[in-house]
């Protein structure tokens, strides 16, 4: 069965420190990968996406992610976080050869940036 795993439910980090949020998915077949951010009481906003090409993807707000096919991972990174990055982050996967219409979401990682 297709699935997405976010191993860390919460990640506390101090302001200006680097952070990595981990995401692994179940299958090594063709995938489209996404990271979304959800601020309190808001909907999900796309941070970045990987469809094909360069494995290093840059997104909004200084975030980037690296697609690693052999490890079936798509970890999100930021070199220096701000208080305003405190939010819930979701990894999502689309399997175009399996069920193109369905997005598989991870369980979310709460990033808590402390001053």
């Amino acid at each position, binding site marked *: 069965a297709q699935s997405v795993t976010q191993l860390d439910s919460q990640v506390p980090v101090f302001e200006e420190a680097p952070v990595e949020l981990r995401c692994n998915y179940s299958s090594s077949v063709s995938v489209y990968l996404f990271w*979304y951010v959800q601020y309190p009481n808001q909907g999900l906003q*796309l941070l970045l996406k990987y469809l094909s090409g360069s494995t290093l993807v840059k997104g909004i707000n200084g975030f980037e992610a690296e697609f690693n096919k052999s490890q079936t991972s798509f970890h999100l990174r930021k070199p220096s976080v701000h208080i305003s990055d405190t939010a819930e982050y979701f990894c*999502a996967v689309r399997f175009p050869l399996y069920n193109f*219409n369905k*997005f598989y979401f991870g369980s979310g990682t709460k990033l808590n940036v402390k001053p």
Partner: protein
Amino acid sequence: DTAVSQTPKYLVTQMGNDKSIKCEQNLGHDTMYWYKQDSKKFLKIMFSYNNKELIINETVPNRFSPKSPDKAHLNLHINSLELGDSAVYFCASSQASGGWNTEAFFGQGTRLTVV
């Protein structure tokens, strides 16, 4: 103009009542979704429509009935509301054909509270 808009934003109602949530997208997408987000932030897909046809129907009580009058609208009707239905419901849309616009765009959510 809001890309995916859903109404109402907040809904408080008593057990046993029937309620509806409406969603509209102006992105020209061919696929729309309903997701339920529980108190632990877990996102669960409920339904998906492609060109007004139901294509995803996860294990959801039949008290929930989606309706898509056209490609741009997807409504959710809930009969005999129960306490466990309290959650945030998100509408989303995406393009499933053509190989572009492959991310999902989310509405701001409807916070349903059943008392």
